[in-house]
């Protein structure tokens, strides 16, 4: 009977590993088995290559990986019911995440609840269970590292999506971290350790969950993408508006010097400086170092992330800006104007048209426009007297 050389044995061992066998016990069994069968085959067939491919196709016509899957299936039989529940939970969780992302963009109600619930199901239920199941399938360090890395990155991505859409802090870090770990570490580890054959056999449920999570991420990112040119043109417009405001202010000063309506002038100056304060606040939130009144395109179209009822801030849950104090001031200011009143409108429409769902740069421009409107109204009023 022929005996295999050490090199041939190593070749077979490499092939078994390459084809996704990750349980050392099973690898030893299969290697010995294939070698025994091969040594017998070599008595009648002198070519190692053809003998090996014949034995391989006889022993595992569907690839080595199938034997490992059959083994884990038998060993984890008691978890089968749980596996089914978890698969259903995974689908529900990722579907909620997807629906939540779409609702968020469309400003439909219930977006936040659906996002947080979906994410919680995935992060607390499905993903940890998948990790514990996948760790049972391998006793190789590389396999364990791969599974843990996959778990960490997918958790970071799901949590990141929620944080991003809810405007909670550190969302960008979580998302980028998760994606980088996934692409740079998980995918190479996955391809290296599992082998090409096995990649084709990823569970349909896993791929469905994966797909929905990816689509949610795309939505999360599309939420706040404005081009640099768009921001640039907005800052240009704001520069023009500021110049216009300065010009109007100079005209107003001349009229004010005649002291025809001091109460109006006082109120007008108050509102204008209050809006200046708002702009300064926004700037300090975007860039604490910035002292000038100008927004820079590098600051990006950000949303303010602080709760303070006194100024225009983003409401975390409703994703809307509240300008209630400014509105009250404008209504009070209108008392001093006999005609050409500032169009404040009713609460909802004014807030909705001016500030709802607007990025920072647009808000900033609108504030300057309000200032111009006020000064203009004052000039009109004073010159008509």
């Amino acid at each position: 009977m022929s005996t295999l050389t050490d090199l041939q044995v190593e070749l077979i061992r490499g092939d078994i590993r390459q084809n996704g066998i990750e349980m050392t016990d099973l690898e030893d069994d299969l290697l010995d088995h294939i070698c025994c069968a091969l040594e017998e085959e070599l008595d009648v067939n002198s070519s190692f290559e053809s003998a090996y491919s014949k034995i391989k196709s006889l022993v595992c016509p569907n690839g080595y990986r199938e034997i490992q899957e059959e083994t884990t299936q038998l060993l984890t039989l008691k978890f089968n019911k749980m596996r089914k529940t978890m698969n259903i939970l995974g689908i529900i969780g990722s579907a909620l995440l997807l629906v939540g992302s779409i609702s968020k963009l469309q400003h439909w109600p219930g977006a936040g609840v659906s996002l947080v619930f979906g994410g919680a199901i995935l992060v607390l239920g499905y993903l940890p269970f998948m990790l514990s199941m996948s760790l049972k399938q391998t006793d190789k360090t590389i396999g364990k590292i791969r599974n843990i890395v996959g778990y960490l990155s997918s958790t970071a991505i799901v949590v990141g999506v929620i944080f991003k859409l809810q405007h909670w802090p550190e969302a960008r870090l979580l998302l980028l971290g998760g994606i980088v770990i996934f692409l740079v570490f998980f995918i190479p580890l996955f391809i290296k350790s599992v082998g090409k054959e096995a990649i084709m056999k990823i569970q349909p449920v896993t791929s469905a969950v994966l797909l929905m999570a990816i689509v949610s991420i795309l939505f999360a990112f599309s939420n706040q993408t404005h081009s640099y040119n768009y921001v640039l043109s907005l800052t240009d417009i704001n520069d023009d508006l500021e110049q216009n405001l300065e010009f109007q202010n100079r005209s107003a000063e001349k009229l004010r010097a005649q002291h025809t309506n001091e109460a109006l002038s006082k109120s007008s100056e108050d509102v204008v400086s209050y809006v200046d304060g708002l702009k300064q606040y926004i700037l300090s939130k975007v860039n604490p170092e910035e002292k000038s009144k100008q927004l820079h395109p590098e600051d990006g179209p950000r949303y303010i992330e602080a709760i303070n009822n006194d100024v225009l801030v983003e409401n975390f849950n409703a994703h809307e800006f509240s300008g209630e104090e400014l509105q009250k001031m404008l209504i009070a200011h209108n008392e001093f104007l006999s005609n050409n009143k500032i169009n404040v409108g009713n609460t909802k429409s004014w807030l909705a048209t001016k500030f709802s769902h607007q990025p920072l740069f647009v808000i900033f421009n609108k504030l300057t426009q309000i200032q111009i409107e006020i000064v203009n109204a004052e000039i009109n009023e004073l010159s008509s007297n």
Partner: protein
Amino acid sequence: MYLKPMYSKELLKGTLTTIILRLLATHGKMYGYEITQKVKILSGEKILIKEGSLYPALHKLKDEGLVKTETEMVGNRMRKYYSLTEQGGVSTKEKVDELFQFIDTLKVILNVNPKLT
């Protein structure tokens, strides 16, 4: 060399662990390839155990504590010998008895010779 097995996979499915346990009880320690060859010879090549069923079954038995393994180096590869644990011995007897009873019952059910009725 490799013949098509005579019995269907479904028939073998429920009896595979009993066959393995019984073989180990008679022959002491055996390695995987040896088990397949022994079954092939004993059954007159009517039963061929697929590797895809044998190793999952062996690992399951080991997980349940019915068999244990010891290793031996053959060249530069490892050969794993499977043998019964004490608990495995008890379980083998139960399973073999159960299977014999099952065969007897099957004979009664399937024996529809009209002369006997």
